[in-house]
């Protein structure tokens, strides 16, 4: 499989990365090189093989469903580019 420039622009939008036409053109070549490289996997017969979900066998850990952390909203927003009254500030999203 290979990608064209329109697919690259669509994927860039899905990934929320703005690309110029020049960048999209450059990325098309690079992505196709990488996709051609991973296509080697087509040689492998994976029929009847389960996909890997965990490299080390272990029981999923559980904990009591209780609040055991929190109560410091000022720390949570401390690194925000914009915040007010312990809320994150973003451009207006509803009219």
């Amino acid at each position, binding site marked *: 499989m290979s990608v064209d420039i329109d697919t*690259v622009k669509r994927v860039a*939008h899905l990934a929320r990365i*703005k690309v110029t036409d020049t960048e999209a053109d450059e990325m098309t070549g690079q992505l196709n090189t*990488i996709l051609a490289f991973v296509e*080697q996997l087509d040689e492998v017969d994976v029929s009847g093989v389960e996909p890997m979900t965990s490299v080390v066998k272990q029981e999923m850990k559980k904990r009591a469903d209780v609040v055991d952390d929190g109560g410091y909203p000022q720390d949570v927003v401390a*690194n925000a580019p914009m915040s007010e009254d312990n809320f994150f500030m973003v451009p*207006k999203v509803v009219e």
Partner: protein
Amino acid sequence: MTELTKLTLTEARDGLAARDFSARELTDAYLGEIAAGNQALNAYVAVTEDKARAMAAASDARLAKGEGGALEGIPLGIKDLFATKGVHTQACSHILDGFKPPYESTVTANLWADGAVMLGKLNMDEFAMGSSNETSYYGNVVNPWKRTGSDEALVPGGSSGGSAAAVAGALCLGATATDTGGSIRQPAALTGTVGMKPTYGRCSRWGTVAFASSLDQAGPITRTVRDNAVMLRSMASVDAKDTTSIDAPVPDYEAAVGKSVRGLRIGIPKEYRVDGMPDEINALWQQGIDWLKDAGAEIVEISLPHTKYALPAYYIVAPAEASSNLARYDGVRYGLRVDGKDIADMYENTRAAGFGAEVKRRVMVGTYVLSAGYYDAYYLKAQKVRTLIKRDFDQSFEAGVDAILTPATPDAAFAPGAITDPVAMYLNDIFTVTVNMAGLPGLAVPAGLNRDGLPLGLQLIGRPFGEETLYSLGSVIEQAAGRFTPKRWWA
């Protein structure tokens, strides 16, 4: 270099315990080395001088009372991927500009609890994506090693390039690092240092900036095998804050160093003899086989038939997980924000300005392979291939193999800019990436110099939680090969 900075981590530990010198003197010696050498090597992106001196003073107080921990007073460098409370933590990316976490990673918290001293944060490839430390927002790290008779700068490998260079150049006694496809072992091999990627789940991932969560694992880079064993014991723990942390006690790894390897079965995988590999690498591998044989180990040829598919499968799994993990960098909660005409435009502008070219490439590949209609063909298939890669290893271990010996890298250090094709760069991890795909421990040990005088390393791969066996075998190689120190040109 002062006499103090010539000591290994374990020698310094013993000297501190015997009160031959103080933690403050040791830390000052390292801060002096950093001040003299960091401009040339660019290993540190932030030096925490005041914090280091305060921590060293606290260590001296504990040592005076006879209450020193396992790493009391030992000055360490920390890869910029580990969250350190109130201190520069940016994964060497522009998008995390100014980020100072209000919390501490479990790995670093463990080190401070054992008395270690933080010298600063170490340079790395952006978000740990790279094999040469050329993708850092803070510029290239320079390898302390140069070719004999040449002044050309060389890369230290990556992504833990700052960690490896700082240890090789004696700008710290040991460094934390992380390894997703080879990011501890490849730079260790290229700088003549010792690097351990532990079994997946041995070190907590909590508070470590995530790249590919099913592959990421923290480990130490040090000057000697014994130093490495001591540092891993402190880094490793059982952590309720990481669901993949394994509930198993942390052994005394140092006790395994120097232990007899007589009777251990060492597998030599024929698939690791790849075309175009320099003769020197083959010769080094044979030398390693002979050393282990001389020490009483039994050598057996094994087959790991899916080896060649590990790297292509990795370049589906790792970018897929990265595209998901890096979705959090949106200009809202931390770091860089570049305004736009609406919120989506703000996201796109922020990520376009904040991510470097290699990170964008991987996020794009990951987004593509996870997008509607392609999930089965790429991601699911890669995860099935991963099952086969792990099965290859399982079968060798079931047949009685205790550990596997391979070269660590396909070649020695190269010049920055020498590899521009992304796939050619990915091939640097051809011998290391299989280990992450199977979740196994892997140890890179320096084993010799090439004809240009550059270090080369061997890799030992262990059974799950077989770190002790690797340290025993690694110390055999270290004893036979000796230690390698670069000529000090940087200060």
